[in-house]
């Protein structure tokens, strides 16, 4: 069972793909206009950073993303917990929530643009709609998955409804809520980019669309990489929080 270590295989495979990508256009196998090249991407990336364009567009996109995510947290976390605690609410709200969850919510983009215009507000709304549903659904599931024996024990030891909620249900459902937040962060990032690609005047998605229509694939791919790295960092950060906030659950 001696196989080469993980990092070595991973590095080797990434390096060989990058090398093939770099060499194929040089060897004349593919047209560099259509495929770009790693070295070109790095060079144009340095240019984008040096002119300050990256920060100018990223600042707008980040603002939209965090505003939308904050709204989604403020509404989604209490909403999900309430939905999980009330069977009557669940019976009424589950069907529309599930229908919205199954549907591609980014299709609402044109509606949101008609309602809120082409500026910041419509992107904030796209992020909100993308992020809020996973948070609500996971929060509701989290409340319902808190072990019934814990609830019973707390009740028989004389816990009030409020105690039950703050000391058993809330901490018990936190990991599920955070898993929802992690999904929501991913949806939100996609939402910002797609929203800006659809219609906007500034922002990373706007740049991606403009660069694409002017055949500047190297710069486009640089922006794509930036968003990917941000997405990876954001989801990793939420995952860390998720793990830190579940010290009481020994298993899993």
């Amino acid at each position, binding site marked *: 069972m001696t*196989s*080469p270590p*993980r990092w070595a*295989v*991973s590095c*080797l*495979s*990434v390096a060989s*793909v990058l090398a093939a990508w770099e060499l194929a256009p040089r060897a004349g196998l593919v047209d560099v206009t*259509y495929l770009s090249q790693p070295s070109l991407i790095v060079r144009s990336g340095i240019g984008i950073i040096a002119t300050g364009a990256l920060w100018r567009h990223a600042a707008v996109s980040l603002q939209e993303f965090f505003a939308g995510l904050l709204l989604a947290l403020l509404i989604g976390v209490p909403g999900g917990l309430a939905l999980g605690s009330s069977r009557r609410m669940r*019976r*009424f*709200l*589950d*069907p*529309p929530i*599930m*229908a*919205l969850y*199954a*549907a*591609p*919510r*980014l*299709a*609402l*983009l*044109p*509606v949101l*643009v*008609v*309602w809120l215009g082409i500026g910041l507000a419509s992107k904030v709304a796209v992020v909100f709609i993308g992020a809020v549903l996973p948070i609500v659904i996971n929060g509701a599931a989290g409340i319902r998955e808190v072990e019934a024996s814990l609830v019973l024990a707390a009740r028989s030891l004389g816990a009030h409804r409020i105690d039950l909620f703050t000391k058993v249900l809330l901490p018990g459902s936190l990991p599920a809520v955070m898993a929802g937040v992690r999904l929501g962060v*991913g949806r939100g*990032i*996609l939402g910002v*980019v*797609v929203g800006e*690609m*659809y219609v906007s005047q500034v922002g990373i*998605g706007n740049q*991606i*669309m403009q*660069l*694409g*229509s002017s*055949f500047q*694939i190297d710069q*486009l*791919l640089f*922006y*794509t*990489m930036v*968003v*990917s*790295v941000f*997405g*990876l960092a954001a*989801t990793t950060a939420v995952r860390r929080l998720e793990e830190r906030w579940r010290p009481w659950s020994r298993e899993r």
Partner: protein
Amino acid sequence: MSGSSGGWRASLGSGLASFTVIAAAWELGVVAGVLNPFFTSRPTAILSALVEQALTGALLVNVRVSLGEFLLGFGLAALVGVVLGVLAGWYRTVEYALDPFLWFLYSAPLIAFYPIFVIWFGLGAWTVVAIAFLLGMPPVMANTLSGVKRVDRSLVRAAQSFGARDRDLFLHVALPACVPMVMAGLKLGVGRALTGVVIAELFGATAGLGFAIGYHGQLLQTTEMMASLLVIVALGVAATQGLAGLERRFDSWRTGPG
């Protein structure tokens, strides 16, 4: 089994009830002047727009185009995702080699490849299919991978000691054991592939439901826009429910919690 189908019927009933209440509130809001029908339209108008689109055949054309692109893109995603996932789950070296790319596909805003695909494939169905494939593939692959990896080692050892070869092991032990994970991956992939179809059509296409939404949106025809949106929601629900049914069917032999 009968209990679960009864539960399904009950949830369908409460679903219809809650949609009826929402539609009624929406309609009354418009009648009472609280909602501006220019922005929100109204259920009765949307319904008659749907009927009209169905009669002129526009609805059928759009559904057919979107559905065709979706089936092709998602079918490819399922095929490639399962094959790559099985390979990576079975051979550790393959897993290590593919892992960084899977991570990239998961964290990248894959719609950003839309302009590149337009350059490669032109403005039309193939670009939409490519986006649907790219979005639908990663969850299928990731879930298949972890499903194959988590196959019970004692089952494998037992089969081996009874003289199973690699091929038998794969076909009769690993493949059936990872069905639930694969199905879960397919369910995740369906939603993402459908999103890919709609967004790619929104950005640039000549037909399809996403195209219809974008087209009517630019003309500020809220009613027609909402009608297409409704059809997309229905398609999404149908696709997820269809897969859930398939999952129950494939997984019916399994006993006990698993």
